[in-house]
């Protein structure tokens, strides 16, 4: 079920909230948690019911595994933890990476690949990795020893079940143990509803519109059309903005929903396109994944404790696996590898230019970081490596630079930036008015991500004004546009 669907907004959410607080009033925290678990299972099963069996099986096995690991000691404890972590990784490998492996090996050996008919269960990357973190915590003796209802509420809590934020049990379970969670608080509820509505506006008003522009370019390139300079940059910037507004909008909605149920979830974005370095970017983008990769991959690999060379190797490995976590394709590996390389360069630069500071350096760092991040989104979105190469070529004018003739007739000075062409098919469906609209909207979106405060930084008064500015547009998009788009991170 999608947060931006009528079924969720009109039926599921009001019913889940009413039943949760009613159960809490009549039966206390335990009854409220089981109500929430039932609602979350319904939410998960709404699209593909049989995947619920996988989720429930995974929850039960990992809950019991945590108990066994806590009770064991010595080598047995290590083997139990390693075994169940491997089981989780095996599950995700089967559903997510087996066909990727078959395809890669077949191509390498010159065979025709015979793919298996395996449907990727929704959110498997998210709920599996959160449970791996729980098992590791249990192994380290850091488990809060949750009850089954606390454990299931932590993992399956529907606001973050599908696409995060990635939470650890120590973030959430203490809140489920707090009786104040189950008492309806109008101010807390309003704060949650406000954040939810602003996130919904980010998704349906901004992200979906940028998605239309990005799709025109990237889908056109997938049909082997070479993009000219402004078509390529239109698509790249549109996707850069779409992904941010889509995913941060989802995260805001999840955080807002959490608050409506009395649960505070960690912030996942902090204006990432304002970052002044790649290191800074990863402290602002998908922050809960960054924390997960740092705590459960980078640091166990040795982090920066084993010398600079090993640190760079660890960074590359972490980011390559981070890329692969997003999807089973070489384009994601390339994206991860690029960010790993960026981080190495960034750390290297910091080591050799410790004293270099100043406003100009900060501005240059911000511009370079944004450019590097935007270019790295090309493989993240492109259909394959060949399409990645064509868009990248277009971005550096390998296929020429053109602008609509009609536009150049009215603004002749623009001839400096491109040759006249009747229509640009890979920009805004080839309409001249659409081309102008696209670039005006891109400028608006860039101004928002570069200069506007994020939702967490906004005062209550500013949030109200943002609601006033966006709510009617949200209503129009959700109830009257006739289409409901999925979230980009749902496929991970």
């Amino acid at each position: 079920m999608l947060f931006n669907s009528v079924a969720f907004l009109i039926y599921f959410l009001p019913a889940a909230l009413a039943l949760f607080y009613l159960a809490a009033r009549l039966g206390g925290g335990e009854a409220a948690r089981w109500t929430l678990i039932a609602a979350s299972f319904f939410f998960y099963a709404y699209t593909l019911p049989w995947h619920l069996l996988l989720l429930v099986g995974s929850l039960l096995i990992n809950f019991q595994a945590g108990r066994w690991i806590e009770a064991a000691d010595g080598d047995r404890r290590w083997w139990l933890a390693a075994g169940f972590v491997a089981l989780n990784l095996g599950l995700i490998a089967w559903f997510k990476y087996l066909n990727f492996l078959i395809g890669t090996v077949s191509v390498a050996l010159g065979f025709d690949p015979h793919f298996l008919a395996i449907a990727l269960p929704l959110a498997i990357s998210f709920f599996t990795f959160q449970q791996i973190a729980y098992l590791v915590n249990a192994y380290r003796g850091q488990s809060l020893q949750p009850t089954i209802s606390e454990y299931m509420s932590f993992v399956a809590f529907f606001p973050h079940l599908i696409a995060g934020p990635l939470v650890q049990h120590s973030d959430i379970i203490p809140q489920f143990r707090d009786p104040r969670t189950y008492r309806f608080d109008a101010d807390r509820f309003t704060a949650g509803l406000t954040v939810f509505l602003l996130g919904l506006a980010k998704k349906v008003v901004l992200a979906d519109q940028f998605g239309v522009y990005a799709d025109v370019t990237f889908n056109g390139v997938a049909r082997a059309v070479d993009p000219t300079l402004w078509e390529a940059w239109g698509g790249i910037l549109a996707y850069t903005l779409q992904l941010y507004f889509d995913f941060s909008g989802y995260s805001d909605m999840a955080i807002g929903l959490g608050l409506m149920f009395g649960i505070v979830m960690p912030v996942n974005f902090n204006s990432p396109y304002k970052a002044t370095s790649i290191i800074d970017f990863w402290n602002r983008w998908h922050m809960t994944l960054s924390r997960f990769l740092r705590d459960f991959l980078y640091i166990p690999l040795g982090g920066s404790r084993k010398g600079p060379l090993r640190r760079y190797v660890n960074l590359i490995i972490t980011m390559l696996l981070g890329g692969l976590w997003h999807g089973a394709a070489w384009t994601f590996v390339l994206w991860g590898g690029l960010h790993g390389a960026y981080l190495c360069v960034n750390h290297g630069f910091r080591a050799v230019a410790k004293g270099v500071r100043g406003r100009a350096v900060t501005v240059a760092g911000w511009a370079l970081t944004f450019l590097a991040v935007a270019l790295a989104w090309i493989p993240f979105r492109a259909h394959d490596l060949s399409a990645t190469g064509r868009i990248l070529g277009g971005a550096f004018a390998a296929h020429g630079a053109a602008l609509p003739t009609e536009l150049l007739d009215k603004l002749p000075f623009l001839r400096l930036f491109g040759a006249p062409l009747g229509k640009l098919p890979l920009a805004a469906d080839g309409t001249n008015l659409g081309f102008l609209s696209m670039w005006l909207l891109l400028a608006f979106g860039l101004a928002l991500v570069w200069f506007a405060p994020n939702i967490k930084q906004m005062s209550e008064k500013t949030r109200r004004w943002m609601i006033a500015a966006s709510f009617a547009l949200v209503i129009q998009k959700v109830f009257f546009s006739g289409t409901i788009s999925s979230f980009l991170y749902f496929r991970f």
Partner: protein
Amino acid sequence: MRSLLSLIGAIALSLAAYFAASALLLNKPVTYDSITRMMDRKIAYANSLPSPKLVLIGGSGVRTSHRCDIFSADLHMPCINGGATVGLGLNYLFAEYRPFLKAGDTVYLPLEYQQYLITRPAMLTGPDAAILFRKDWRQLARSRSPAGPRQARANSATRAALSSRSPASSTGAGRAASA
């Protein structure tokens, strides 16, 4: 509770501003103004033509790829190119042209594929509604679902046109027998 009331106030303000802007200022969005003017010109021209006449109805595919001067010369009858834009639903187009159709007129309907697929919510909030909201809100208020009375009349006109005896009917042209 005060914060909740403040949020409700912001929501009410948003809706009020949206309706006020749509009704009074923007003609949602601005480009629909030009569509409205174009439709007004076409309808005024259709009204001025004697019957029998050829009426082309559809989206921008009709507007930009059909030439009435050639049709008129070949068929020896006046012609009006009623093609506008794909965003306009059939309810609106048929309702606009129907009063000017007379017995003996030929209606040619090379419709855009998407025009068959416009949903009721989209129809009630898309360009049709935006234009009607300013121009003829009574017609908008009378609008029903695609199965409602207005659509039923429109469908009836379409069926009549498509089932006419004209040899061109198999390609979407027909004679508005009942008009």
